[in-house]
């Protein structure tokens, strides 16, 4: 369908988009550098190059407005490069504004719109002025070996540069930790080293002769002398080595062999700082995604004032190497439509089915006493096949993964903008930008995170005066952390602001009737905090009373639930607030609880499942037309899936009609908690639920002993407790089959009006199970209940 030229246009847009994103990143780095008072000319060069490329691209595709913007920007950047204009906050504002405009221009160009853009004219005029404002001298620079930069995260790179800029000495520390206690060990080391300097990065060293321990090489910048450091860290068994500085030869290779900063083979990720899980140490299991770093001299030049590594300022990275680097990166990436990956994933699904079939045949052969040798060979082949299918599947999943850094960069830009708007000084600290998540999740994540970032700056961080009054640093800090935790990715947004005012939140909740006054007295702090996810109670109006733009935290929570994630909040008054978002790594495969309703299997995403318990029919009460039980002190509305889906009730229900029969159904066995498998936390439910059961018994029910006697004939049903936001719903199912990782496929347009299903999945036994859309069901049930109440009806659904 797409003609050549259309394809070329597509390419243009995606390439331009990428460059604009990169530009945004560089500007942020420049902003950081500007704040720290030391601007790296290389960064300006990068920005210049990006704009130059954009100009060329825009010219090629006749995007005139883009090329004129690029042209003006180029002039300004050239002046910056030559030191004719200083890098100042207003100049940076202009640059940031242009990144925004680039985005808009691209959008307009893509949609073929050609409406005037007054802000562009304004910016162009400003750029003219900006370029003419002369004066000031350029700043000195330093260059760091690109090999080392490839290993460092942006933040670490920045730290390294800051250290060099401040003229600190770089040290290499070597320390061995027992794997079992590495977390404490690292913390202790960090705490001890903190007063002396800044840990830039740590990487595991190669000498893995002992599997119980690991040697870390730590790169640290410090003002202290080697002996001071040695004394301070001696008790931790740290070896301290000062990094010799390069002699000043023009090319790194000519330098008298400097000690390599990192001589170890570098695993794909450095040890993520906040992860509680043990670091990836298994030497063989670590994929070497990074180029091996054989000999990585730290090639740098220093700023003028300090007696620090002073090097030949004119010698930068040999230009040739740099060019090669760019060409390489272009050649090594391929842009792939995510739908093509879905097709591949489907094929893998088919292969898995073939595999199951093969296994079944083998099983048959064993019974049929066929040729033993043949059977063994076939079995081996089948195992090979299985292994390859699994790695194929993993490979495809990996391709879908993109680093969270993409979103974080956007967030950093937003943070900068908001903090300037709000007149607050905020320092954004990002860790774990390299953590990878499914592309689709990253796309959907930016809005919720953006909103949380805005909240943190608008409502979390206090005004400067207020901060100073309570002895807090004048500059607020927002930490954005990401790390992997099993099959999930955790993202934290933490501010050191004033915290959430729980009293006011509660007050408002009572006023709105969300919480009853007597209920409020028994609520834990955590429960109160969670009220901010209730619609209409978001921090914005509830706590600060600033009429705000944007949406409430309830929407954030809903969006995150849609991605199969959960959000949690912690807050201490005067200390700060921390939002923790836990997301599945991929949407393509989710963990689901497989249940049976009238012999049909359904999958419920585990992300929506809180627990599963026995259904005690006796405990079911009809409250205002809704059936409910009391589970651990709070009311849980029930939804009988068989009834909702119009499936015949189980034969065990003794012929009672499909509607409202639960009260008459002979009671089932005693209530008990049932953990289907590990991840459902229900160990302690047994007593809780039993104790919480209604003391009331409908008249005419049999005595407990009669109940037990009946029990064998009656199949017990289960309640699967699903939670979406603060709302809970108990789905009544006939049996629990188990937990399984499933690939969700969307239902076709012909079924789009059928509510309650998020898709379907093929189970191992080739059968298709529909995947329940728990958020939709919860919404539906609650809406139904509201409607029923409004009409004064007492019927179930």
């Amino acid at each position, binding site marked *: 369908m797409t003609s050549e030229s259309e394809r070329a246009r597509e390419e243009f847009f995606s390439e331009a988009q990428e460059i604009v994103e990169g530009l945004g990143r560089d500007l942020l780095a420049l902003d950081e550098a500007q704040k720290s008072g030391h601007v790296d000319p290389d960064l300006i060069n990068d920005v210049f190059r990006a704009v130059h490329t954009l100009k060329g691209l825009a010219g090629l595709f006749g995007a005139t407005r883009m090329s004129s913007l690029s042209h003006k920007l180029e002039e300004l950047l050239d002046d910056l490069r030559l030191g004719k204009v200083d890098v100042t906050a207003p100049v940076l504002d202009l640059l940031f504004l242009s990144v925004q405009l680039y985005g808009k221009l691209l959008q307009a160009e893509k949609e073929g719109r050609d409406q005037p853009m007054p802000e562009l004219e304004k910016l162009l005029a400003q750029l003219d002025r900006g370029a003419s404002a002369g004066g000031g001298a350029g700043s000195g620079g330093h260059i760091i070996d690109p090999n080392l930069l490839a290993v460092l995260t942006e933040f670490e790179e920045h730290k390294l540069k800051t250290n060099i800029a401040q003229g600190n000495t770089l040290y290499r520390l070597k320390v061995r930790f027992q794997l079992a206690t590495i977390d404490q060990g690292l913390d202790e080391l960090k705490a001890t080293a903190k007063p002396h300097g800044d840990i830039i990065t740590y990487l595991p060293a190669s000498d893995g002769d002992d599997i119980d321990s690991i040697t870390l090489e730590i790169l640290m910048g410090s003002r202290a002398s080697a002996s001071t450091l040695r004394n301070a860290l001696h008790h931790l068994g740290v070896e301290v080595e000062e990094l010799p500085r390069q002699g000043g030869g023009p090319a790194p290779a000519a330098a008298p062999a400097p000690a390599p900063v990192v001589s170890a083979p570098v695993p794909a990720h450095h040890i993520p700082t906040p992860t509680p899980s043990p670091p990836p140490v298994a030497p063989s299991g670590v994929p070497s995604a990074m180029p091996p770093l054989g000999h990585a001299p730290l090639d740098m030049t220093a700023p003028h004032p300090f007696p620090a590594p002073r090097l030949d300022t004119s010698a930068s990275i040999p230009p040739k190497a740099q060019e090669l680097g760019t060409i390489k990166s272009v050649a090594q990436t391929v842009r792939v439509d995510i739908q093509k990956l879905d097709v591949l994933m*489907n*094929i893998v*699904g*088919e292969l898995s089915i073939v595999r199951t079939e093969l296994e079944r045949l083998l099983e048959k052969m064993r019974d049929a006493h066929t040729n033993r040798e043949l059977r063994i060979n076939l079995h081996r082949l089948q195992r090979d096949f299985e292994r390859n299918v699994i790695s194929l599947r993993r490979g495809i999943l990996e391709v879908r993964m993109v680093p969270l850094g993409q979103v974080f960069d956007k967030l950093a830009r937003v943070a900068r903008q908001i903090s300037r708007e709000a007149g607050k000084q905020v320092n954004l600290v990002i860790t774990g930008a390299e953590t990878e998540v499914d592309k689709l999740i990253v796309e959907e994540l930016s809005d919720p995170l953006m909103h949380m970032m805005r909240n943190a700056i608008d409502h979390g961080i206090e005004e400067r005066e207020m901060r100073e009054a309570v002895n807090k640093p004048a500059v607020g800090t927002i930490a954005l952390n990401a790390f992997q935790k099993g099959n999930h990715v955790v993202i934290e947004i933490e501010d050191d602001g004033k915290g959430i005012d729980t009293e006011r939140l509660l007050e408002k909740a009572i006023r709105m009737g969300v919480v009853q006054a007597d209920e409020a007295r028994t609520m834990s702090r955590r429960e109160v905090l969670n009220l901010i996810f209730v619609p209409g109670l978001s921090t914005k109006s509830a706590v600060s009373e600033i009429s705000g733009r944007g949406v409430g935290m309830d929407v954030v929570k809903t969006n995150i639930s849609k991605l199969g994630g959960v959000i949690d909040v912690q807050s201490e008054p005067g200390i700060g607030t921390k939002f923790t978002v836990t997301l599945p790594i991929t949407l393509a495969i989710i963990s689901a609880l497989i249940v049976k309703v009238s012999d*049909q299997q359904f999958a419920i995403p585990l992300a929506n499942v809180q627990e599963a318990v026995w259904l005690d029919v006796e405990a079911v009460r009809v409250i205002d037309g809704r059936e409910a039980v009391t589970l651990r002190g709070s009311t849980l509305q029930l939804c009988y899936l068989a009834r*909702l*889906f*119009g*499936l015949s009730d189980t034969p065990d229900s003794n012929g009672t009609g499909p509607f409202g029969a639960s009260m008459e159904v002979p009671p089932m066995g005693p209530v008990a908690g049932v953990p289907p498998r590990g991840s459902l936390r229900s160990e302690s439910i047994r007593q809780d639920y039993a104790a919480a059961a209604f003391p009331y018994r409908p008249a005419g029910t049999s005595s407990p002993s009669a109940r037990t006697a009946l029990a064998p004939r009656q199949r017990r049903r289960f309640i699967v407790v699903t939670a979406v936001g603060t709302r809970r719903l108990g789905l009544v199912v006939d049996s629990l089959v188990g937990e399984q990782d499933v690939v969700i*496929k*969307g*239902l*076709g*347009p*012909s*079924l789009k009006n*059928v*509510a*309650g*299903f998020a*898709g*379907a999945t*093929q189970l191992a036994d*080739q*059968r*298709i*199970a*529909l995947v329940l859309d728990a958020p939709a069901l919860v919404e539906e049930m609650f809406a139904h209940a509201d409607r029923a109440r409004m009409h004064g009806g007492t019927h179930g659904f």
Partner: protein
Amino acid sequence: MASNLARRTSSAVVPAAAGAKRKKAQRDRGPITEYLAFRLAGDVYAAPVSIIREILKLHPLTPVPRAPSSIMGIISVRGQLVTVIDLRRRLRLAEGPVTSKARILLVDPMGVELLGLYVDEVLQVYRLADSEIEHTATALGGEVASYIAGIARPAQAQATPQEGKGVALKSVGVVRQNASVVILLDLKVVLSS
């Protein structure tokens, strides 16, 4: 009628000559479209072969609760989920028992979604010239369901039962005696309603 009969008889006797004759006859009759005939509730229906991607045996279906009653359920075709529509229900026909002859036709008439159509039995392909198709308005007049594109009386079906049994049935191996009238369906209309 008479010419049809004549052609039919000759085809049984001297196939080669008949082939040449038929080709000539086709030239006279105008463009030919191939239709796949299938049985629904005892009657013969047909749809253009060009829109039918594949004919599947009946897979185990997974019913979709709360879906419209004409949707039988979903199946997986090489990993892709396909919604199966019961044509009998869609056309409000009687529903007989499902036999092993039942098939699912994979179609994508709108180019948006691959759909499965349940039919009781797949019969044969008819090559029909436009001149062999009666338009419903002229044949039945008045208000005929819009999903009927036309009615065809394919040449072969004109034979009397006696004749048919003797020659044609054996050579092709499909049941034809009920195919005296073939109802041509406009699947776009059927599936969009």
